[in-house]
């Protein structure tokens, strides 16, 4: 935060400028203790606010967005305790207490959605989470920078492609009339349609996530790896550690903090699996295999009009997610002495 101190001098234009000219301050250190400064420090909060009016003007639209579109909707969760009807509105809809919550416990569809979500999340944490670490280690071991750069450009690309396109492309390559089946047919093998097989769906979803995000997610691990001191590698090598042992004893411990941090954040979203990705493929696979919590909320609420129950599911999901993040963070703090926040 170097240089910030100067600003206590304020932008009251002329007066401060005079003070600065008299006392040149090339290093940008705080001109602490000038009479000017003390006078300003003694002034009320209101005058400080007036002095920084430009800054408030800059902040205002953004603040309005965050309040209106991120915090106000939280209030909309009252619907979860109502038999909400859009015609009656929040104020006139009947209050039903915890009725929606007891209903969702016995709703078979909710349970299916929960189960599917947990299965998908589990597979993604086990396979999609470590994949970029492995790729980052592999790319990092390359001796040629140009090769590394080209490969990075290639593996980052799918991150920028929308899910509709990704699913379309996968269908085109792996679907019933797709490329793979054409090749299989030429070999005299029957069609295998991975895109419509409910049993394969969790694996398909995980593979797609890996394909789309493996490259992009390496970036943060690269950053962590680049902050490890090269001397550590050198002394490990001098001590006779080969490439594998250097990864195990230097690189991995060096990035373990980042890995833990990302895992904490990932656990917070354990009840969230890609809404777009899944809803786009639901027609092909069927709702039994491809209904997750978010798609359930959408269909039951926005499409089906059962606002109370679906809002209850959404609220419960949000609360559990927040609790999980805080819990994982607390656990991390206990074990490593340092949390994410």
């Amino acid at each position, binding site marked *: 935060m*170097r*240089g910030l101190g100067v*600003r*206590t001098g*304020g932008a009251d234009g002329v007066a*401060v*400028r005079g003070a600065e000219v008299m006392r040149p301050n090339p290093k*940008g250190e705080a001109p602490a203790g000038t009479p000017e400064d003390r006078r300003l420090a003694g002034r009320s909060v209101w005058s400080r606010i007036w002095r*920084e009016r430009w*800054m408030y003007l*800059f*902040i205002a639209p*953004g603040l309005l*967005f*965050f309040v209106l*579109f*991120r*915090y106000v*909707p939280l209030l909309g*969760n009252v*619907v979860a305790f109502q038999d909400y009807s*859009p015609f009656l509105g929040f104020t006139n809809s009947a209050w039903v207490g915890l009725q929606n919550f007891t209903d969702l416990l016995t709703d078979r569809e909710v349970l299916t959605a929960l189960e599917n979500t947990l299965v998908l999340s589990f597979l993604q944490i086990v396979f999609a989470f470590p994949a970029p670490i492995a790729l980052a280690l*592999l790319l990092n071991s390359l*001796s*040629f*920078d140009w090769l590394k750069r080209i490969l*990075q450009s*290639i*593996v*980052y*690309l799918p991150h*920028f492609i*929308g899910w509709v*396109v990704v*699913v*379309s492309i996968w*269908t*085109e*390559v792996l679907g019933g009339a797709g*490329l793979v089946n054409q090749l299989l047919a030429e070999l005299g093998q029957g069609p295998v349609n991975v895109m419509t097989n409910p049993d394969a769906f969790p694996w398909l979803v995980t593979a797609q996530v890996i394909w789309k995000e493996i*490259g992009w997610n390496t*970036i*943060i691990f690269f950053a962590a790896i680049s902050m490890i001191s090269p001397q550590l*590698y*050198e002394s490990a*090598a*001098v001590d006779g550690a080969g490439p594998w042992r250097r990864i195990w004893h230097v690189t991995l411990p060096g990035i373990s903090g980042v890995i833990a941090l990302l895992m904490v954040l990932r656990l*917070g979203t354990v009840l969230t699996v890609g*809404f777009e990705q899944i*809803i786009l493929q639901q*027609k*092909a696979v069927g709702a039994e295999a491809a209904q997750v919590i978010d798609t359930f*909320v959408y269909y039951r609420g*926005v499409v089906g009009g059962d*606002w109370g129950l*679906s809002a209850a599911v*959404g609220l419960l*999901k*949000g609360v559990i*997610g927040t609790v999980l993040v805080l819990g994982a963070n607390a656990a991390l703090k206990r074990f490593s002495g340092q949390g994410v926040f």
Partner: protein
Amino acid sequence: MATLPAPAPVQPRRRRSNRPAWEGRPSLAVSLVKAVVLLLIAIVMLYPFVYVIGMSFASARAAASGFVLFPTEFSLDAYRTLLSGNAVPQALQVSVGITLAGTALSVVFTVLMAYGLTRTKDVPGARFILYLALLTMLFSAGIIPNFLLIKSLGLIDTYTALILGSTSGFISAFNLVVIRNFFMELPQEVLDAARVDGASEWQVLTKVVLPLSKAVIAVIALFYGVAYWNDFFTAMIYINDTSKWPIQVVLNQYVLTGTPLDALAQGNTTERTVTPKTIKMAIVVLSTLPVLVVYPFLQRYFTKGVLTGAIKG
């Protein structure tokens, strides 16, 4: 005496590799395995794009007979059919409009807010507002409350909903942090010098800060632009009027849910020369094109941009 051929200049052995001196040369077997794995990864990442682009340009005959890399016979009929109809050009127009307007607005308001939050010590309440914004990364109100908000604001079936209600957020807290961190790392002496000369904060921002921040702003613009262009969820939920659909929704409609393509052609005579498959792939290409075009120009910037944001955030 015959002139001796000039001695070949001694090539200094340039080290092309960045392998440190203490590290031994990797064994051939390891290098080979690495090369194969990396080649496979590159193929898996790139091949689907090559195939889809090839298919979109294939003639009906080439599409039917199948191909591996490039079609044996090229044809632009799929694109002609799509662009002579109504649905796709209109959707492209909507998508381009939303992406340009949304990106411009998002970048402007993110930059303003990020700059406003740089001097949390001097601006009373700024730190609180910063935390208020950052906290939103940890929770979401949920689909239903967000829908009810957009509805009660009367924004259903409006383009405004596509911008203010976008999935990544009209102002994304992540992008806000990236930009703010960048601003905090600028040499503050320069900014202070401008202030001492009597520049208002608006002048400091536009005359000093922004010219130094072109690269990071380009990265943020790319993030926003890609998010607006690819956003499917927002339009699916908030837009019922098919004439206001962006290209991603149209793509889903015709390619994934199997709505008959006849509606796209609108009495065009080339129908017989194109197969549904090539038309579908042409829609895929059209709805990826802007990203593919912009990507090479911006990709060298974004690693740096993400890095600073990710580490500090």
